[in-house]
């Protein structure tokens, strides 16, 4: 591997990591607040990508899709949380199980919507105008869209950090993550807070779907892949914290990218090995508060 290759792969790893952050942030947020691992997170991601496909086709603009798809997914979250999860408040495992059923329904819905140009065949979303070129980077061509993904992920992390640390909503979220029951006793409407959290998480999954679609395309099974990767990221980084999602994606993104280049047969084994090691030696994840193993 030459220096140019290494630099190129490092950038690929960085952009994959940025994407993983967008994906895992929503999962981690929902877990931190509600103690629910949303197993429909991958399905939300997939739905976000397909909505983006339709919006781009209708309006001709990727940027419209980047705004609309997360809003659609947030709306789905706004409906699903009060309808399904709220009845099972306190039964965390059952809430997780419900999201399995939800994932089945969403994936099947997408598979059956041939008439919307979705269906079971592989679809592609073109790169947005202006970001479809390559730029010269240390002597080799590099796609600008991937650089955009890095910048976008970093900006989102910054935005979420500011929201989390510097706003009153962020304070509510932090308090809810710490002790939702106490927050409720203080007179905060936690039902509403949970619904908003779930909607935000779903919206972030949808956002990840839009951003990923031009790079990875749209096909059946992308929901499962996304779910697995986001689970690995939060396990490695630590569940329920924003910094954990950053740390996890910063480790898993580059590790997976370099693994795929250096030993393609064992790329997945590498990130699972990282996960196993983290679990054995740091059961809370790198930066988490919740002990995953004991």
């Amino acid at each position: 591997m030459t220096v140019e290759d290494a630099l190129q792969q490092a950038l690929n790893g960085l952009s994959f990591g940025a994407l993983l952050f967008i994906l895992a942030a929503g999962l981690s947020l929902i877990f931190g607040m509600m103690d629910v691992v949303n197993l429909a997170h991958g399905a939300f991601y997939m739905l976000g990508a397909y909505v983006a496909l339709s919006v781009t086709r209708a309006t001709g603009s990727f940027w419209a899709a980047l705004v609309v798809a997360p809003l659609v997914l947030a709306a789905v979250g706004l409906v699903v949380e009060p309808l399904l999860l709220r009845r099972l408040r306190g039964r965390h495992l059952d809430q997780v199980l419900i999201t399995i059923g939800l994932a089945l329904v969403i994936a099947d819905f997408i598979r059956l919507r041939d008439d919307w140009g979705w269906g079971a065949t592989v679809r592609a979303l073109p790169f947005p105008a202006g970001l479809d070129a390559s730029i010269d980077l240390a002597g080799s061509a590099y796609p600008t869209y991937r650089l955009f993904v890095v910048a976008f992920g970093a900006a989102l992390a910054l935005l979420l950090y500011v929201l989390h640390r510097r706003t009153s909503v962020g304070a509510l979220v932090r308090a809810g993550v710490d002790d939702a029951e106490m927050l409720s006793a203080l007179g905060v409407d936690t039902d509403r807070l949970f619904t908003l959290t779930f909607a935000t998480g779903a919206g972030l999954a949808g956002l990840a779907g839009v951003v990923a679609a031009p790079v990875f395309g749209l096909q059946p099974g992308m929901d499962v892949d996304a779910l697995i990767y986001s689970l690995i990221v939060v396990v490695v980084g630590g569940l329920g914290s924003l910094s954990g999602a950053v740390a996890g994606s910063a480790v898993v993104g580059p590790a997976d990218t370099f693994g795929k280049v250096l030993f393609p047969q064992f790329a997945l084994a590498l990130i699972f090995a990282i996960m196993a090691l983290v679990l054995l030696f740091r059961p809370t994840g790198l930066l988490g508060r919740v002990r995953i193993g004991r």
Partner: protein
Amino acid sequence: MRIRVAIVLVAWIALATFPQWSSAWESSRYVAGIIRQVLIFAIFASSLNLLVGYAGLPSLGHAAFFGGGAYAAAIVAQRLGTDELLVSMGAAIAGAALLALLVGYFAVRAVGIFFLMLTLALAQMVFALAFQATDLTGGSNGFSGVHRPALFGLDLSAANDLYLLVSVASLLVGLLVWRVTTSTYGRALVGVRENERRMRALGYDTRTLKLSAFVLAGALAGIAGALSAYEFRFVSPNDVALGTSVTGFVMVLIGGAGSLLGPILGAAVVLLIERVLPSELPAQTVLGIVFIVFVVFARQGIVGALRRVARA
């Protein structure tokens, strides 16, 4: 007790001889095929039920051992050039148990939702291996041309012989699960489910207890996997995939976790939805909705609902 045993035996004999007494009926062969598949998945779901229903370990990676067993049976039979049932079934059980030991070693360190996440992620690694080790497994094309087995040279490849094999296997697995769950060991597993700290305080090594249950359940899933390989003469990465794990989980929960009959009923209901329902209906959507309804309104599954009705 005796009456129960008699009822189960009579029901099993009636089921095991179905191809014989129904042969005049034109759909007999088709229905026998469905029953075979229901029984194979009933074994799979029963093995998962040991974890989900008894030990309180919500595994979402059980397909790793189903598919692992299927691949082990198919590959060993092909490499050794033998159709002997004991060889391929032995390979399936050993392979699945070994895999379960590996996965379980990490997974039983976690509890509840984390256990579920870990089993899911680790099983996906097995899936990735099955998908990538093309020389061994055929990769995404799957492993086709699995031979139907023979027992001590006695050919079991005819549909009715396979039916008998599946019936006998499901009876044996059913008896084993019954024996395990009613033993002190089974009670200890339920103890871990109800209150692990207390079990530890009582001197039980709960991690080993959970790991042993995980390995046992994995080995039994391997039996189901081998039978599925014989049945379809084909093993694919699908057998190891999350979808199969979810199917097993849905079967256990719809039927009723923690009961012997539950997973069998669950397997029947799910396969009826997937294979028998008119094809215009979206099977996965129906399955997802049925599953959600059961989780919300009837967490104890069909068996629990029947018990409630019987008590009222």
